[in-house]
């Protein structure tokens, strides 16, 4: 059964087009990773699908309804988002922050029902953060904080969870911890996980389905065997990759890689080095304006 897909999706800021005519199906009850180089539109795609930014044309369909037309609170019962590096929680305790995830189920003043409290405790338990329940979120380490934000998304009790680079700023052990937690949520509870990942090998190891983007268009979408391949990576990242097998998980992995030398790539590189910094800032400003609404 397909619950979530996009159709000829166009996303952009002003005249700048970021994602072009993108049609993709997100497989249900699987872990999907979106990969691609900086500025390829992967975060933008995630933001549009989770209605944080509007799309220009095309459609994002969830359960047969366009998300642009759906009630936002109703959507919050179906999908949760962990934005990229959520900022400080302004003095909230862990329990308080996670309780905010119950908003879509609350009526009136937002008093917590016994059911709410049960779900919050479960979310804290599942993410291993119950011990910090009454501590201030700001006082936690990066890895603990990330798990608390995941707990807040879990408290929403949604079948789909989106994460934008959930491992950024974490050390290797904490990265693995977060990804294993997500995998567990997928295998044990059948939740659909969609995340933007930077690390190819993490994507290969934890995702069932990978969408590789370049310049706002899909280069390849498929299983990790289909996507983590020399020719695909060459197209997506301009790298010449040596693909092997992870000796422990038997998943494909990129063992080593070189930049592809040549005139066209040099041109590309020059373009990205000079242009990317500016466009990224510009884009972030525009994103702020966009999402301010």
């Amino acid at each position: 059964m397909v619950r979530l897909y996009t159709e000829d999706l166009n996303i952009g800021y002003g005249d700048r087009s970021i994602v072009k005519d993108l049609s993709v199906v997100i497989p249900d009850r699987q872990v999907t990773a979106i990969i691609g180089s900086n500025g390829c539109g992967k975060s933008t795609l995630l933001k549009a699908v989770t209605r944080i930014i509007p799309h220009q044309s095309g459609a994002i369909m969830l359960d047969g309804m366009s998300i642009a037309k759906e009630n936002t609170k109703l959507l919050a019962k179906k999908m949760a988002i962990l934005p990229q590096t959520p900022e400080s929680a302004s003095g909230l305790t862990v329990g308080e922050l996670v309780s905010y995830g119950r908003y879509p189920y609350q009526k009136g003043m937002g008093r917590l029902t016994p059911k709410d409290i049960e779900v919050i405790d479960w979310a804290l338990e599942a993410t291993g953060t119950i011990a910090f329940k009454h501590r201030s979120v700001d006082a936690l380490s990066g890895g603990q904080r990330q798990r608390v934000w995941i707990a807040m998304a879990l408290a929403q009790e949604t079948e789909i969870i989106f994460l934008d680079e959930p491992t950024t700023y974490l050390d290797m052990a904490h990265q693995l911890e977060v990804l294993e937690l997500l995998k567990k949520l997928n295998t044990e509870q059948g939740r659909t996980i969609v995340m933007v990942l930077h690390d190819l090998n993490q994507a290969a190891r934890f995702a069932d389905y990978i969408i590789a983007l370049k310049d706002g268009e899909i280069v390849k979408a498929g299983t990790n065997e289909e996507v983590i391949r020399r020719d695909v990576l060459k197209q997506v990242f301009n790298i010449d990759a040596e693909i092997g097998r992870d000796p422990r998980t038997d998943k494909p992995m990129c063992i080593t890689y070189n930049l592809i030398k040549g005139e066209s790539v040099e041109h590309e590189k020059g373009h990205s080095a000079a242009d990317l910094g500016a466009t990224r800032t510009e884009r972030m400003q525009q994103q702020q304006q966009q999402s301010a609404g």
Partner: protein
Amino acid sequence: MIHPAVIRKYRIAVGLLIALILVTVVAGMGMGYSKLSYGRLIPTLLGHGTFKEEFVLYSVRLPRIVITLLSGMALAVSGSILQGITRNDLADPGIVGINSGAGVAIAVFFLFLPLDPGTFVYLLPAVAFAGAFVTAGLIYAFSASRHSGLQPVKLVLTGVGFSMALSGVMIVLISSAERSKVDFISRWLAGNIWGTDWPFIWAIVPWLAILIPFTLYKANRLNLLGLSEPTAVGVGVAIRSERIVLLVVAVALAAAAVSVTGGIAFIGLMAPHIAKAIVGPRHQLSVPVALLIGGWFLLLADTIGRQVVDPDGIPAGVMVALIGAPYFMYLLLKRS
């Protein structure tokens, strides 16, 4: 999910503030230009006072106490909302042009409409209210875009710009005016509680009676608007419409207060801030505490201000600023 210790703090804070308000009310009833001894308060309240005692208590002191208390509360709740939707601890009703907008409207009305002073006193709150609303509307129009709705940072910047421009307008307006009129306007700007009569109270009570419970009802949205936008959208807050509704509520509350008290700054800044320091950032708890702090604080400022200089006293706005300005500096220093 709320720690029992926080709930306890909340209960203590609320109890203490109510006690402080009662003490200040009683103290204020016995203080003033005309003598009404504390021993005569209870008999007068029970209806056994002389005509003079009853007049002083019911027509002079009590209206002033009630209006001051209510205005302080309205400003504090307004400040709580504005700090929530702009995600800026330094926001207060002044930044959406309430004080300056109402001030210009009062000045224009007072200087250019040849009306009989007796009747138009009752029109002034309406004029101030309209002025505040028009200004807030203009600031909103300049800081919102059709594409992405209200932008908090732009709102703060536009608001500050407007306040400055309108202050300039005020100077131009009053520099050419007669002395007696300038006196009234400058006292209004200084926050001299002047709407001290029962009709003024009946005029602002409905606003508070509706908008304060409404704000508490919206407390959980305010909590979420204080987090990042993607987070608020993710849990299903319709941020565009919630922001507009809450902004209108904040403007209405502050405009109601300012229309009877004149320009009073800092209450809307300090009260929410102190409340959050005591009970934490959740608005379900911080708004009621801020409300009590704001009411008590303005009442205290006015009660003291009335005593210190004969015969008119120091305007409450000046008293508040005397305490508020250092607090503001402290906040700025702490942030940097």
